[in-house]
């Protein structure tokens, strides 16, 4: 508990110091609970998620960093590896490939990378996975772009 707190505090300081270093990621800690974080990540360019801003919720376990943080999308996203309803993310580094050397910041980067490189063979979103597996790239991109517009972009007045 104490170790994870110290580690998170260190990460917090790191984030504060390198705020400008990675403009695609905005990682903020809950005011009252250092084990709750939220992040805003920008959809990578040349993907259907370009232009969207996706909110992630981090729940850091007590044994962090030995155990991975739980991350889920708060913003709706149409992606084969993200559960459409719960926002759960199927990402190996959040499960069995976690390494204590990773940080919340690096998790954010990994999620951005996952948005650019979906893995339709281990889908949480079967519709999206099926589109990709059947080769309907255009269909997948259209759906993803639509949901990005709907959910991840500021509403046009």
């Amino acid at each position, binding site marked *: 508990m104490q170790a994870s707190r*110290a*580690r998170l505090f260190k990460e917090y300081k790191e984030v504060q110091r390198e705020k400008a270093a990675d403009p695609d990621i905005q990682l903020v800690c809950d005011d009252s609970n250092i084990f709750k974080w939220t992040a805003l990540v920008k959809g990578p360019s040349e993907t259907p998620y370009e232009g969207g801003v996706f909110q992630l919720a981090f729940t850091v376990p007590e044994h962090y*960093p*030995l*155990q991975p943080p739980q991350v889920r999308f708060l913003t709706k996203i149409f992606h084969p590896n993200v559960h459409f309803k719960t926002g759960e993310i199927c990402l190996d580094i959040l499960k069995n*490939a976690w*390494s*204590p*050397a990773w940080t919340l910041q690096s998790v954010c980067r990994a999620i951005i990378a996952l948005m650019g490189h979906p893995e339709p063979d281990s889908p949480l979103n079967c519709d999206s996975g099926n589109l990709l597996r059947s080769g309907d790239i255009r269909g997948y991109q259209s759906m993803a772009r639509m949901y990005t517009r709907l959910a991840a972009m500021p509403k046009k007045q």
Partner: protein
Amino acid sequence: MVSDSIPNASIASSNLRDFAKKKRANRSAKLKQCKLDARREQWLSHVKHKGEYKGDANGGVIASIGASVHLENQRSQPICKLEINTRNDEGIYVDGSSTHHYSDSDSVQSNSPTSHTSSVSGSNDSAANFTRSSRSSSSSTNGSCSGNMSEEDEGDAGDDDCLDDWEAVADALAATDDKHKDSPSSKNHDHSTESGSQVVASDQMFSGINIPRIHTASANSESGRTANRRALINCCAWRPDDACRPQTLPNLAKQYSFPLKSEHHLDRGSVWVRKNVGTIPTACPICVEDLDYTDSSFCPCACGFRLCLFCHKRILEEDARCPGCRKKYEVEPIDGEATLDGGSLTYRLARSCSMVARS
């Protein structure tokens, strides 16, 4: 260790003189002063015979130059020959052509006893600095130790040398920026000649080992210049850690002769080396606690990922994979268990582990 290469009678006599005078001072002061005098003489001889002088001594090397020293002894004029064995831990400079000519440093010698008690620490430092610097600059050889010098100082000289050496290095590094601080510490006001000459030495340090200039300065070392140079001495002495030294300089300088300090110096040296290597983080990347010495010498995985022992143990209890490369800790986990569980269990674990790996 240097007993076979004892210089000559003048040294011995001067030392005896010193001893007679120093009866009142305490023993450590005596020892220090002896060493100090010897160093100064060595320095003077450096100055006057720069070209011929070869000046480093290390315990192991001295035997090889014994012969040459004896040759010089036969050749020696009314010259005070002094070679100091400085057990420096830095390097071994083997002498190629060892013709040692030494100048008459009796004048200094006669004056030296006046400042025995007080100015030991500061002057000691500066003298040591000089010897180091000249040694390194001329890339020269062994001075063998005068017998009584080495025997007397056996106890603390080595430590001192280590420490002085450290200071010398620091001073050499800081030689360019002249931060002159006022000297609350200077107890050696009234010891004109000695402090003067020593200051010359430190002065020398600053000017980047400029032998001829030293020569002249030492020739007419007058008390008038002492104050000016003392600032330099103090500057030298303070350089290593400027921030905290000025107020407490006298005490700190004294402490430098303690064995503990030399260990400290060694530690710092090693730390320095490790930092220069640059591959070892200062804090555990997992728990962000500072790595202590054991931790930083602990490298459990071939990938080079380092972490503290505490985190390593916790990882072993979970999935036992290296955070850096995600490979299973193969042998090291077993080693980790060894300290906890003892030998037999460890080996059993090792066998089962390897079997699992094979299957």
